[in-house]
Structures are given as C-alpha cells and as structure tokens.
C-alpha cells in the first residue's frame, strides 16, 4: 500500500527529467563541442567557456540579469507585505475573491501586460496625460518608455503577485494571536512587524524572493519590448548566438553560465535563510532561559 500511493510520482518525474533535465545535459555537451564546418563534433573543447569568461559584454549581461533579479527581490516585499497582511485579515468568505483578483493579472499573457504598460507609460500615455492635465509637467516625460526604468516598472508588476502569494501563505500559516499579544503588551505596529510578523513569515519571504529573483533575472521579453536601446539581455544574446550566429557551443556556455550564476545566488539566499532561522531560534532559546 505504501508503494502504491506514491506510484504516481515516477511517471511525472520521468517526464520532467526527459523534457527538462535531459535538454540541459545536452546543452552541456554542446557547450564543449567543436564546430567543424556546419556541423558539431563531439569534443572536450573549452573554447566557448573561455570566451564567456573573457568577454566583458557577456559578463556584464549576466551581471545585469542578477541586478534585475536582485532589485525586484528586494523591492517587491515592500509592496507585498501590506497587501498580504490585509488579505490575511479579510473575512473568510471574501478570501477567494482576493485570490482571483490577485491571480487574474498573472494569467494575462506577457504580451498583453507589456502592451498595456506601453499605453500607460508612453509620451501620450495615461501617466503623462494625467501629469500634463494636472499642470505638473510642460512636455511629456520621455524617460518612462524604452529605458531600463520602464523595463523594471513592468517586471515589478509581473512579479508582485508571486511575492504576495508567497508571503500571504506564510501569514495565513502563523498564529496571528502572537501579533495581537505583542500589541496588547504595548509594542508599536512597527515593532510588532519587525520582531513578530517578519521573523515568523521569513520562510515565505525567502521563498518569494527566490521565485521573484529567478523570474526577474530570466525575463527576456520585457527588456526586449520595454527597454528600448538598453533592451539587450543575456537571453537575447543566447538567442542570436543560437540562431543568426550559429555558434551553438558559445550559446550553450553562456546559457549554462547564466543558470549557474542564478542558481548560486538562490543557493546563497537559501543558506542565508537557514542561518537566519537558526540564529533566531538560538536567541529565542537564550531569551527563554533568562
């Protein structure tokens, strides 16, 4: 009976390994292959990896991906915490509505969202129209569209629901009477948040940060369509190396270098989360003894 209940895992795992893991292994093989004319020959040639390591452009693009991901992972919690806490206090009968409202923008395609934001941020868009109408600006603000800022604005919009969901789940799971008790004992709302709510929802926060980091760093479409002249990403470079330049080893090496860098960042975040949890537990124990 034990074996039977878990029998549904292997087929799914097999599918994921075949369609997800195997192509990445193939990519690793291609990254050390040699180009001979128009075909690839199996080899152990580190030319592509050396080129990635030596190229300031490629290193810069990987750094930019990390930068986008890190900025989003740090900024989204600021907006997500108030929303998640408010959602958690919503009466039970209304929670499903909150979930639908939150999830629907996630389901609209990336293209729809980017398109909508172009209408918001353009020279004749809503924000410039509103500012002009209020008499705050003379000429439309051009910096809102086709810059790094506009790409970040849209990526923030895209990733915020994931952060809210992660924190919301954590807030629902912890006993909110603890926060109420702290309030009753005279702590200010900010102290309650910092000393009670934040430590108890840290797991959700770190999970959300990991997801938002990965999504922000891996987004190629938003910078390409919103970033204008600054729209190049490591992903767009991989695409052109793979397609137009037909340098598959280099495309593979860059892709894997990007993935390894991102995985390293997430691993560091996980370690940090583990250490923070342990030290919190230690200090709680110490306080308990005194």
């Amino acid at each position, binding site marked *: 009976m*034990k074996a039977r209940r878990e029998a549904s895992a292997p087929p799914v795992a097999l599918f994921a390994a075949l369609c997800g893991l195997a192509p990445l292994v193939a990519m690793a093989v291609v990254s050390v292959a040699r180009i001979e004319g128009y075909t690839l020959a199996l080899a152990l040639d580190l030319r592509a990896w050396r080129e990635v390591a030596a190229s300031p452009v490629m290193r810069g693009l990987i750094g930019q*991906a990390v930068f986008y991901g890190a900025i989003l992972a740090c900024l989204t919690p600021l907006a997500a915490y108030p929303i998640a806490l408010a959602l958690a206090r*919503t009466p039970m009968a209304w929670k499903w509505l909150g979930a639908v409202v939150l999830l629907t923008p996630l389901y609209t395609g990336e293209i*729809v969202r980017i*398109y909508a934001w172009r209408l918001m941020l353009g020279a004749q868009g809503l924000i410039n129209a509103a500012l002009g109408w209020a008499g705050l600006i003379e000429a439309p603000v051009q910096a809102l569209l086709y810059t790094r800022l506009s790409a970040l604005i849209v990526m923030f*919009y895209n990733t915020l629901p994931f952060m809210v969901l992660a924190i919301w789940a954590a807030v629902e799971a912890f006993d909110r009477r603890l926060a109420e008790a702290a309030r009753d004992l005279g702590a200010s709302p900010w102290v309650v948040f910092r000393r009670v709510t934040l430590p108890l929802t840290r797991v959700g926060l770190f999970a959300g940060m990991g997801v938002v980091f990965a999504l922000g760093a*891996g987004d190629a479409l938003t910078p390409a369509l919103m970033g204008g002249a600054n729209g190049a990403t490591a992903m767009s470079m991989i695409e052109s190396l793979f397609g137009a330049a037909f340098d598959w080893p280099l495309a593979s090496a860059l892709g894997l270098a990007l993935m390894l860098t991102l995985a390293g960042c997430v691993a560091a975040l996980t370690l940090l989360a583990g250490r923070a949890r342990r030290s919190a537990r230690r200090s709680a124990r110490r306080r308990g003894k005194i």
Partner: protein
Amino acid sequence: MRARDWRVLALAAAYLYLPILVLSLFAFSDDAVIAFPITGLTLRWFGALAGNAAFLDGFATSMTIAIPVGAISALGGLAAALALRGATLRPRAAWWAAPFAALLLAPFLTPRTVLAVAQSMALSELGLRRGMAVLGAAQVLVILPFTTALLTAALLRVDPRLEEAGRDLGAGPWACFQRVTLPLVRGPLMAACSAGMILSLADVTLATFLAGRAQPLSVVVASEFMREMRPDLNAMQVVVLSVTALAVALAALWRRRR
C-alpha cells in the same frame, strides 16, 4: 479587518487592473492614433478582426495546443500532488519528496530562453521536428508546478479518513481513488485544467523557439507588436483577455464548488 486594510486592497487592485482597463478602453477608441484624450467610441476594430486571417489562424492554433496542454498538465499535476500528499502523510518514508519537488520546479525557474534553446538543440540532435506536440510538451513542463501546487493544496484539505473508510469497506486502490478522492477534487481539477490552458495561451518564449511552422496567436501578436501599436491589436488583446477572464471565473466557481 480594518478600514486601512480595505484601502490597501483597493489600491493594490487599482494598480493591478489599471493597465488592463486602459488597454480595453483604447480598443473602443474611434481615433486611429492611440493617445489621450479619447474623442469617440466605436466597435469597428473588433469588426476588423473578423476579416484578419492571421489572427483567426493564430487563434485556432493556440486553442489546438492549449486545450490538450490544459488537460495534461491538470492530470500530471494531480499525479504529482497525490504523491506529494502521500509524502506529507508519511514524512519518514518520503526522502524523495524534496528532490521530486525540485525537479518539478526547476524548469519553471530556468530562464525560458535557456530552456527553449536547450530543448531546440536536443531536438535537432535527435533529428526530431519542431511543432505543436513538442511545444505542448515544453509548455506542460513549465505549467506543471502551477497545477501541482493548486492540486496539492486541494488534496491536503481532503480528510484522509474518508479514503481509509473506503478501503475498510473493501474498495481497491483504484476504486477508492475514482469513487472517493476524485469526486472530492473534481472542482480544483477543472480549475487546474483551465489555469493550464490560460498559461499555454499566454506563452510566447517557448512558442517562438519550438512552434515550427504552426504560429500560435501569442507569436503572431508579438511579431506585429515589435513594430507598432494599432487599435486593432488592442481589440485583439481584449478578445484574448475576455477568454482569459471567462476561464478564470469558471475556475474560481469550480474550485469553490468542489
């Protein structure tokens, strides 16, 4: 629930929906130039869509891919969720649960372009052709974490004693699943199916690399959209949004009704 909470939620909803509202508004604007202020309202952009062959073909292709992708990712998610719930019921024997979850989550966290390029390379090394089937498999791969999470949450609300009662009354494992567990999660299963469908419709990156000659609507729109913004593209987005909204509403209903 305090007044301040309502204000926060209203503000959040406004932020999330304002871009979508503006987009919808311009689809009804009479002016061919997309700019404020709006001078008049019209339905002619929607009429123009009916005569647009690229749009209609793309829509048909998208639906041909999205419906099976939705169904398969819901069933795959159910299989994964059943296993994961088994693991939470007996955590000691479940050393495999964490690596299994990581294996499912990894493709979702991999940059889409990297995943799609890797899959394209693997396909060409194997001599397989790109097309709808390959694209569908790739989409199921990145949608599985969503459906698995949704169905795991639903299964954890099912009381395991109900299934034990079924077993005690002599039902075999399959009968027990089919007559006890499945009816209890039918709503969430339908919700997962429609979520999978919507996410398939929304995908651009995987489709760009893997669709081959079949061009789904998202790819058609993306290539038009690189160049310009037109009122009939707005109308097209409103049609896509309406399909999405309908599916989300149905999913919410199903999920609540179980």
